[in-house]
């Protein structure tokens, strides 16, 4: 018996499937928008290499898929109404990896940043200002130049902010903030002094941290800023992270929100 021949309506089926998926997505968006949306989401993008291993691909393809997944996730975040997204792209500790991997990652970052300079790139379409946070003088000069160009070009965008943490560790950030607040030493250092010298100055604290690949640790990311943040560990690898995982993370945040808000109002009165 011929089950699926030329006459089988594949096109109709696939259109219907896409229509159904889009409908489900709209419903999920509608559910999410009914509750409190995190203003600032921090993401630790873990699992690129394990994804490449799982798919029997070369290591660097994992990072490329990760970059693609990042663009999609940013689009979804800004669609929800998230105003700040901070991502952990490269840690200072990651420089201890093999030189080939570090070089490949630097080159990939340079290419992706270069792509952001184009007019029709996502950041210009959505009005996103890009900031690179970290000890940027550890980066190769060509990447640093591209980064500075991107930061300058997107400085006037004001609908949302994307913080990319490169050559970053939170302990280094706090140490340099302490040294930077050094001129106030004789007047006594306060919480505000240190906060004023952190790389994330001007951004509110993250409301939600998402870490992929199932690990539950901070890996030296935003230690100061995550004091009251809701931590969500997602079991999938970063290249597999999609809209439904983001939906789940935000939903969990919304469920914990009443308790988070109740506990956090006390802290905002604390100043040294």
């Amino acid at each position, binding site marked *: 018996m011929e089950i699926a021949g030329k006459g089988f309506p594949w096109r109709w089926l696939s259109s219907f499937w896409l229509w159904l998926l889009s409908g489900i997505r709209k419903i999920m968006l509608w559910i999410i928008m009914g509750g409190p949306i995190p203003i600032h989401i921090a993401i630790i993008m873990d699992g690129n290499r394990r994804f490449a291993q799982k798919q029997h691909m070369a290591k660097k393809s994992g990072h490329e898929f990760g970059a693609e997944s990042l663009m999609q996730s940013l689009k979804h975040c800004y669609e929800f109404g998230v105003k700040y997204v901070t991502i952990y792209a490269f840690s200072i500790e990651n420089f*201890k990896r093999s030189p080939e991997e570090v070089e490949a990652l630097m080159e990939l970052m340079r290419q992706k940043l270069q792509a952001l300079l184009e007019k029709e790139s996502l950041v210009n379409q959505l009005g996103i200002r890009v900031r690179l946070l970290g000890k940027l003088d550890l980066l190769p000069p060509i990447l640093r130049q591209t980064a500075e160009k991107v930061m300058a070009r997107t400085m006037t965008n004001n609908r949302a902010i994307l913080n990319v943490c490169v050559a970053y560790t*939170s*302990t280094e950030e706090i*140490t340099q903030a302490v*040294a930077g607040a050094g001129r106030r030493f004789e007047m006594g250092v306060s919480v505000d002094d240190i906060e004023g010298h952190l790389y994330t100055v001007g951004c509110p604290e993250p409301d939600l941290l998402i870490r992929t690949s199932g690990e539950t640790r901070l890996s030296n990311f935003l230690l100061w800023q*995550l*004091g009251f943040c809701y931590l969500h560990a997602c079991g999938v690898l970063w290249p597999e992270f999609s809209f439904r995982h983001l939906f789940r993370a935000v939903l969990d945040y919304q469920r914990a929100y009443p308790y988070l808000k109740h506990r956090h109002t006390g802290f905002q*009165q604390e100043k040294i």
Partner: protein
Amino acid sequence: MGLRGTVPLANGFNCNEQVQVPGSFASVHLCYGYSVNRLRCQIHPMAALKKETVWQVFHHCLHISGIERRRILSVCASIAESSIKGLGTEEIPVESGKEDNAYEDPLPYGLYPYLMPKHVAIIMDGNSRWAEQRGLPSTEGHRAGRIALTEAVKLSCKWGIEILTVFAFSTDNWLRPKTEVRYLMDLFQFVLEDELETLKRENIRLCVIGDLAVLTKSLQTSIVEVEEMTKNNSRLNLIIALSYSGRNDIVQACRRLARQVEDGNLKSTDITESLFEKELETSCVGDFGSPDLLIRTSGEQRLSNFLLWQLAYTELYFDDSFWPEFGEAQYAEALRSFQRRHRRFGKRVCNKTNGTINF
């Protein structure tokens, strides 16, 4: 020829098993025993082993059994360096200085002594909700929480954890109702006096960290007395965070460094991360102020301003039970979860491209 030591095996391996090492002619005879501080495996004498193959053997064991690579690193290094020649056995201690019978009682099933975290931190959350669930006042919840803490301290001693840090009272908690705060302060005072004999007997050292200047004079005096009387104890370092805030800790470290800069002993450009870490309040336990494992009870998934700097590479574990319900089973499960994890500290664990292992 052979090397003797003990590798605890999970994931389907039994004692006395012979394992073929992939990519080499060597086979490994793995013996499981309770002599937990030694690595025991006999390598078949017919194998012509090179250094790389020895590394492959252990990588294979580690990969299959999921043992934390850092702990076995010293063993692999000594085996590779010793460069197997001729017949004979060699015993390589995993952690030198420890004895086989260091722990008095066996561990719960699935826990391995040399995978135990050195430093565990606990956020004891959920006393009030536990009491509310039972229709009791919150003071009963705190009293039940004290019993759970005593149990956790006992288990930590029994299982060989060296440092236990507990979050007893945050700077935020001062905003709670005055009656509750007063009750908690009285409870802390009572517990310090009541448990002093136990601390002395069980050889537990007590340190209290936090902004102690805001506490009552009598509580401050009790704290100083107990710290003084237990300062030479060494079995367990119990750190109680009272009126503590992670950000305040960083700021006080900053102020201490500021004083050194003002005195001319230090330049502000010379401030490094390691120097900074020495000024944090958790430096009372030397270089081990950063917990390996943080447990938070009551299902809340956040840090609540606890030990922020120190948690850079800490494994986080969130338990759904309220703190008064946290007992041996929950603690063992948290430790099992920790022992299953692969800690990389930002680096790569191994490089398989040329068959050698780079730890």
